[in-house]
């Protein structure tokens, strides 16, 4: 088992009066894929948004408890959120490339984070990021065309390339394939498999089959609580908790 990269301790999250997460204690291993599953509104997205403090942008959102990355508390008010988000990249449900060229989509992050001072350095970052995201061969001859002109699957890989471009340690993926067709999904899954050699990945998914395919560890959330977490194979073959079993076998209700 790999070392623990991210550790959440007694994490509670509130949106105004409504509590969204209850005492979540969850360890995420380095260079491994952790899948988070659970019905809509169970708190899995809220949880991953705590890892790069995306919840900060929601006024009514209050986060209590601890999240440590490499043993360093990230909820510390003094912590530089921009550099945190450099270390923890995110990919969303719907591909959301900037309305700019493919090249600019990738080079934007490194530029604002002060990486890639010269054109040739930036070129290299763009090429490497697109290669890592398995998109280079498809777009290398049209880097100046708008990113929004790509297919859905390509756009999502572009967003992954964009996340990779600032050389993060963690990549958060919030249902990255829900808007994609099966082939585009397969490409992303293949990519996740490759990326986990370098990055710690957390993926929220509604597809049980996807969770089984891509992850080594799975956590099941329900009504803001982490009900069960364990090796993916164990969770899907023989979970300990009845609620987990009812959810993954489609008996919920």
């Amino acid at each position, binding site marked *: 088992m790999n070392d623990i990269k991210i550790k959440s301790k007694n994490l509670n999250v509130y949106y105004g009066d409504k509590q969204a997460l209850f005492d979540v204690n969850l360890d995420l291993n380095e260079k491994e894929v952790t899948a988070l599953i659970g019905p809509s509104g169970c708190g899995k997205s809220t949880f991953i948004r705590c890892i790069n403090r995306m919840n900060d942008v929601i006024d009514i959102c209050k986060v209590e408890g601890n999240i440590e990355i490499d043993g360093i508390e990230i909820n510390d008010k003094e912590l530089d959120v921009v550099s945190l988000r450099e270390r923890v990249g995110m990919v969303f449900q719907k591909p959301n490339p900037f309305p700019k060229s493919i090249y600019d989509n990738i080079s934007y992050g490194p530029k604002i984070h002060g990486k890639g001072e010269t054109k040739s350095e930036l070129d290299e970052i763009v090429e490497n990021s697109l290669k890592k995201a398995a998109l280079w061969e498809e777009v290398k001859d049209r880097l100046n065309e708008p990113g929004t002109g790509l297919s859905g699957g390509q756009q999502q890989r572009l967003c992954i390339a964009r996340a990779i471009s600032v050389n993060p340690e963690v990549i958060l993926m919030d249902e990255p394939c829900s808007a994609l067709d099966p082939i585009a999904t397969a490409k992303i899954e293949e990519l996740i498999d490759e990326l986990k050699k370098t990055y710690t990945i957390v993926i929220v998914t509604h597809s049980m089959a996807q969770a089984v395919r891509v992850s080594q560890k799975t956590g099941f959330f329900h009504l803001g609580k982490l009900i069960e977490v364990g090796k993916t194979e164990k969770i899907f073959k023989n979970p300990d908790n009845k609620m987990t*079993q009812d959810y993954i076998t*489609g*008996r919920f209700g």
Partner: protein
Amino acid sequence: MSNEHTVKSYEEELQYLIDSVIKMGSLTESQMVDSMDAVIKVDKDSIDKIIKSDDEINKFRSKIDTQIMTLLVKRAPMAIDLRETISSLKISQDLERIGDLSKSNAKKVKPLPLDLPEELLANLKRLGDLVIKQLNDVLDSYVNKNYDKAKEVWEKDEQVDDLTYIAMESVIDFLSKDKKNLDFSTHLIFATKNLERAGDHITNIAETICYLIKGEYLKGSRPKGKVIQQ
């Protein structure tokens, strides 16, 4: 199974699969009872009927295979449903093999003389009765999802081994008394061995049921009787 599936037809398909395995099991059991009866009574008239009943068991096997393929492709079952589906596949395979062994035993009745020694028949009957009881118990544990009962069957196979040894000895004893017994004694040896092998398939089923219920395999090797150790 606990709560019902949100998708009703999934629930029905799984239940239909389980019912098929139960029906196949009860056919296999009655075929074994008939076959054993034919051997003990040297009843040559019932041979054809027993052989024919094997066709029906085989048909069940194909039907169950199809049901499983459909379930896998349509539902991608998980956790208990996955174990239920895979267990049906394994159990139906073992049941089919048990059916083949009962058929084989029925075929062995043909060359038998009507005046077999009583002690030999009694020993064979004890073995047959135990194997039938084991099959009945294992099917019962499947129907009721009874882990302890399945494990008991698994452990009791040791007794099947021991009774096989005793039955074998009495056949060999009979054979050694008169060389003209050689022909049909060979059939009796095979029949005895078939019962022991049926016992092994029954323990396989017991293991499968334990896995189905708890999601983990029985630990350690099962107790083995005399015939295996030899």
